[in-house]
């Protein structure tokens, strides 16, 4: 039982992070049918921007922990959104009329570029988030002490997901995003500026990814310029698992993948943690390639 509670909370926290990153993949795919392979590296960028604002700028000393974290989150989400926007303008928009493969190659190039830029800017060594920033508090669940940060990470990702869901379903821009995801040409005929929709999607995704980056830094303390590869690939798996292009699917896929990993590591072997995640990817591609919640297709011609 002790083990179970630990792994459950751990899985939900990791899953929440996967889900946040997966949303970026799935939203871009939904509108452009493009896998933004540089998305994982924007997540890394977020983690490093968070590191800089907390450590180098020393926000916590000047403002207190709460205000510093809030400001850090806002700053990082804003800058990540900006980075996503620049990425779209530089790497994808010029290729909008070229074949799909050109955009994929451009995405891979952008990924390598961002990763190396981070290495040059912040160095190749691991960087550490301040360990004393958050007091090592625990909460008791079923008699088990669970680190508070896990619950915070899970709660924050859940909150953001609900917010995104409301945004997509209740706002004008959200409607435009949904319409463009279903049929870009028809969306244009409705008077929707699809170019703007694409720009917005390329800002929301990285903003959420940047937030995930901070949460990884706060949870595990260490960040590395290559960490976006593994997290990106896992989140991509989560997006596929839930059904790529589907927003609730990305949320579900992220949480499920986090739980599979946590319980797999606990009850099978820690060494098999990553292998299990990718086994899930292979399994879903073989058995149900549309994912658990496929894009709703109800076209009748």
């Amino acid at each position, binding site marked *: 039982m002790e083990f179970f509670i630990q792994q459950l909370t751990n899985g939900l926290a990791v899953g929440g992070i996967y889900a946040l990153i997966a949303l970026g993949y799935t939203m871009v795919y939904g509108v452009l049918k493009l896998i933004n392979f540089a998305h994982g590296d924007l997540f890394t960028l977020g983690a490093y921007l968070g590191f800089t604002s907390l450590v180098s700028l020393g926000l916590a000393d000047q403002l207190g922990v709460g205000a510093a974290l809030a400001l850090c989150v806002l700053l990082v989400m804003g800058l990540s959104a900006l980075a996503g926007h620049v990425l779209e303008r530089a790497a994808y928009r010029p290729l909008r009329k070229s074949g799909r493969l050109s955009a994929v190659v451009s995405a891979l190039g952008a990924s390598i570029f961002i990763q190396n830029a981070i290495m040059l800017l912040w160095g190749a060594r691991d960087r550490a988030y301040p360990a004393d920033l958050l007091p090592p508090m625990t909460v008791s669940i079923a008699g088990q002490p669970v680190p508070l940060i896990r619950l915070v990470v899970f709660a924050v990702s859940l909150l953001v997901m609900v917010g995104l869901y409301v945004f997509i379903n209740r706002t004008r821009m959200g409607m435009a995003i*949904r*319409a463009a995801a279903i049929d870009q*040409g028809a969306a244009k005929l409705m*008077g929707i*500026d699809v170019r703007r929709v694409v720009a917005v999607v390329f800002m929301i995704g990285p903003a959420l990814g940047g937030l995930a980056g901070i949460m990884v830094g706060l949870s595990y303390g260490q960040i590395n310029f290559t960490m976006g590869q593994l997290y990106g690939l896992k989140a991509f798996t989560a997006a596929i698992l839930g059904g790529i292009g589907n927003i609730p699917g990305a949320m579900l896929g992220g949480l499920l993948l986090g739980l599979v990993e946590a319980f797999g590591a606990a009850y099978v072997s820690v060494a098999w943690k990553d292998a299990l995640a990718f086994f899930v990817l292979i399994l879903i591609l073989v058995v149900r390639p549309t994912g658990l919640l496929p894009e*709703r297709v*109800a076209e*009748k*011609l």
Partner: protein
Amino acid sequence: MLELIDLKVSYGPVEALHGLNLTVAEGELVTILGSNGAGKTTTLMAVSGLVPVRSGEIRFEGRRLDTLRSHQVVALGVTQAPEGRRIFGPLTVSENLALGAFSRRDRPAAAKRLRWVYDLFPRLFERQDQMAGTLSGGEQQMLAIGRALMSEPRLLLLDEPSLGLAPLLVRSIFQTIRAINQAGVTIVLVEQNARAALKLADRGYVLEVGRLVMAGPAADLLHDPRIQTAYLGGGPPAG
């Protein structure tokens, strides 16, 4: 109201329209006829800004449309109900109609517009919470037209509204098109169903492989022997 001047459109190296001249006056119902590949859909897509114009001009009330992007064309009051309907299948009927009004931020006006659309198409009112992709073909066509009307167009472009519909439904859709025109909306109707379109329209244009081959009042075209042979299935009398 709408003026196409020596309009040329090409897809890659293939020219689809070789210099088309066409005008539509305010309040008119003009039909564009022609067989597959004649350039009818291309013409409407060029007006809506979905295919780039290679040379020539498109003017709407004196303003150049060919330099604008598609959402700006809609904002000026030119809306298209495209071929194949292109409704948003996974969304409900009312969500589709709400998207139609995307370019109009005035909510009371949109609500009024919605009542008008539901009056024109009572079936849509009955099915407003149904997923659009599950509607019948005729209902989907009603939705495509209703959705286009939600943007308060002054010029409505209809591309093959009768495609794939049973004759009875075609008649009902065409009656509604007439009603929309009589309500003051100028209409360009692209059709393969030449007879029905000419009976409805004021004037007609006939395209063949990207060129204008005939134009005139609809009644004249309807009785023109060349049109009858080519598009109305009435060959020369046997014997």
